């Protein structure tokens, strides 16, 4: 596939980079990334991935755009209120870059649908806001040997880590099990500063892009935490031994996907 002059111009700042070049840009255009959750994290991730020319972007979310989303979910506009989030997200991504094919999945992920959903994608972005979904995405990606970026945001804090099969711990290695229902507030209850989704979601997009390009060091084996009030980033090294993990260890006890119970007000993307 040769680039059109328009594509050369659109991606010129990528192609000039020696780590990307025309070959790297072609890799991006031939890649497929699935974003689960079209919310605070998924919005900036989706927009940067679309702008970068990720050829196929899947986006999954069952919700509709709500007025209270707009403080952080920058892929949606005021005129999108009431519209399916995946549709609103698709329209924004296609407006940014017509090279991108957007596939929409108007559903919440569960143990029944997630395996089929992730099967056709090269990299998965967890942009969900609740522990049941995060453990489900982790377990499904481990079982299907898919790399993914985990992230979470609340108040003025955010965190992320990257899982690549065979290259370090999974989310469950670190966090074992979901906390008891209602033990941890959701961002709906606790609040979140809008730009936090921009910071962390953009980092997730960056990890996806680096993974596809095969360049640089990924956030595998580390958890990056960001405290905006203290203006501190910390890169915490995670234990290397994954052998005893219940899902990615040598003798996994979790061999089927689990639908954990969700807190009542949960279930919406950040």
């Amino acid at each position, binding site marked *: 596939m040769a680039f059109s*002059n328009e594509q*050369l*111009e659109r991606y*010129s700042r990528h*192609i*000039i980079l020696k780590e990307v070049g*025309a070959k790297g840009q072609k890799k991006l255009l031939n890649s497929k990334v699935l974003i689960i959750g079209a919310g605070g994290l998924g919005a900036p991730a989706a927009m940067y991935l679309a702008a970068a020319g990720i050829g196929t972007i899947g986006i999954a979310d069952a919700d509709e755009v709500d007025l209270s989303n707009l403080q952080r979910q920058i892929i949606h506009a005021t005129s999108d209120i009431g519209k399916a989030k995946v549709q609103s997200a698709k329209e924004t991504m296609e407006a940014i870059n017509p090279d991108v094919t957007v596939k929409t999945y108007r559903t919440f992920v569960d143990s029944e649908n997630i395996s089929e959903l992730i099967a056709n994608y090269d990299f998965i972005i967890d942009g969900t806001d609740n522990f049941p979904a995060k453990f489900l995405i982790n377990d499904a990606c481990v079982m299907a040997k898919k790399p993914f970026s985990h992230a979470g945001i609340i108040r003025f804090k955010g965190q992320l880590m990257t899982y690549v099969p065979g290259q370090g711990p999974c989310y469950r290695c670190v966090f074992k099990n979901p906390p008891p229902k209602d033990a941890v507030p959701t961002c709906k209850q606790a609040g979140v500063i809008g730009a936090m989704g921009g910071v962390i979601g953009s980092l997730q997009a960056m990890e996806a892009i680096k993974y596809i390009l095969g360049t640089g060091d990924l956030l595998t084996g580390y958890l990056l935490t960001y405290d905006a009030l203290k203006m501190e980033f910390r890169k915490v090294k995670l234990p290397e031994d994954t052998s005893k993990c219940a899902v990615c260890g040598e003798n996994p006890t979790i061999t089927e996907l689990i639908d954990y119970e969700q807190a009542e007000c949960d279930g919406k993307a950040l």
Partner: protein
Amino acid sequence: MTDINFQTDDTVDITDVVCPITFVKAKAALEELDEGQTLAIKMNDGEPVQNVPRSIKEEGHKILKLLDNGDSTYTLIVEKVGD
């Protein structure tokens, strides 16, 4: 580019774009080649002929020849160095 008096492995015309896409288009064409292969790059007089050869040299490729086509365009013959 019939006025080139020796064979190159590929040719690219960058007279239809402006800086910095001139270099981007030449770079993209060079990436398609293997080490040691040659590319003929047709460019306009002025800014392209001043900047593109220098940028290509900075990327580590070998400039073999710059031919004046006599019609305000030039053809730069480059050998690809590295992968």
